[in-house]
C-alpha cells in the first residue's frame, strides 16, 4: 500500500497541464515513474474512482481527478458509494463516508440558470 504515491501522482496531475497531456497520451509510462502496487496502478490507469476513494485518497484530490475525467457530479458520488459496496469502508484519511450511503442533495428538475 503506497497511498502517499497514489496521492502524489494525482496531486501532480491535477495541477500540471503538461502532465495531463502526457497521461492522456500514455497512462502506463506516466504512472511507471511512481512507486505503486499493481492494484493502485490499475485503479489509476482505469480511473476507478470507487477503489481510489476506498484506498483513502483525499477527497479534494479525488474530486479534482473526477472532474478531469469529466465524470458528472451525481455519477461521481455514486461511484464512491459503489466503491464502498464492493471493497468495504474507506481505509485511511479523513474523507470516510459517515452518512450510511444516503443521498443528501438532489438536482433541481428545471436546471434553471441564473
Amino acid at each position, binding site marked *: 500500500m503506497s497511498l502517499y504515491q497514489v496521492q502524489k501522482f494525482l496531486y501532480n496531475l491535477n495541477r500540471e497541464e503538461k502532465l495531463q497531456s502526457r497521461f492522456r497520451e500514455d497512462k502506463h509510462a506516466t504512472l511507471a515513474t511512481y512507486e505503486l502496487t499493481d492494484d493502485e496502478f490499475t485503479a489509476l490507469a482505469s480511473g476507478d474512482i470507487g477503489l481510489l476513494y476506498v484506498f483513502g485518497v483525499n477527497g479534494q484530490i479525488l474530486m479534482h481527478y473526477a*472532474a478531469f475525467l469529466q465524470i458528472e457530479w451525481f455519477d461521481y458520488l455514486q461511484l*464512491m458509494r459503489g466503491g464502498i459496496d464492493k471493497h468495504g469502508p474507506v481505509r485511511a484519511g*479523513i*474523507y470516510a463516508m459517515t452518512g450510511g450511503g444516503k443521498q*443528501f442533495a*438532489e*438536482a433541481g428538475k428545471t436546471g*434553471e440558470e441564473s
Partner: protein
Amino acid sequence: MSLVYAGILSHAPGITGRAHLAPNAAVRDAFYACLHKQAAEIRASEAEVLLVVAAEHFANFFMDNMPAYCLGIGEKHTGPIEDSDWLKIEKTTIPGAPEVALKIVKSMLKSVDLAYSEEWQCDHGIMVPLHFLTPNYDLPVIPCNINCQGPPLTPLSRVWQFGQALRQACDEQTERIAIVGTGGISHWPATPDSGKINEDWDREFLQRLMNQDMHKLLAYVDEEVYSQAGQGGFEIRTLIATAAAARGPGELQFYSAELPIFAVGCTVARFEITA
C-alpha cells in the same frame, strides 16, 4: 489603519459549478445577491489589495512539504487548476501585490512562523470568491493558505495568533487592504455525504464568530469538529483568523442550509474593524 474591510464567505465549487442544478433558485439567487453586495462593500472601502485567507485543496502544497501557513508574494497567480467546465470559471491570471505581500510577511515573521511563495495556483477555494468579489480580476490579490486538509493541522489558538499578526502587519502598511476569510463551516465535501450540513452547529459557530467570543471559538477541538461538522469543518480556521484580524463584532448577512447541492451552509458576513 490600513485594514479597510474584513469579511467571510463560502467557497465550495458547487456554488459556481452546480448553479444550474440548484432546485431552490430563489435561495441561490439571494445568496448570489449577498455575494455581489459584499463585492460592492469591498469596492466602497477603496481597498487597493484583497488578501484572501483560504483553505486550499492541494493546488500548491502536498505532504512532501506542507506549511501550516503560507502567503503568496508573487507578481501574478493563476487558476483555477480544476477543469473549467466543471467549475464554470475560465482559466485566468490574477494580479498579485508583491511589494505589500513582502512587507506583510516581514512584519508577521516577528511573531508567526509562516511560509511564503512566489508561485501560486488557485483552486476553487480562492477562485469562487474572486469570481464574485473581483470578477474582472483587476484588484491585486494576496493569497494566503492555512492548511486545513493534511493533518496534523495548526491548533486554533495559533490560528488566532496568526489573525492578530495579520492585523498588526496590515496596520503597519499605508496601502488600503481588504481581508476575506473563506471556508466552510460544517460540511462533508467530496464524500458520498456531500450535501450533509449540520445547521445547528453552523449557527452556534457563527454566533460565537459574530460575537468575537474568542474563548468559545478556541474551545473547539478537532475530534469534535470532525464528528459534528465533518472534515470540511476544519476550515473554520480561515474564519477564525479573519475574526481575530478584524477585532470588531460581525454582522451575518446571509446563511442558508437550503442549498445542499452546493455542499455547504452558504455564508456571507462582515466584521467591524476596531482598534
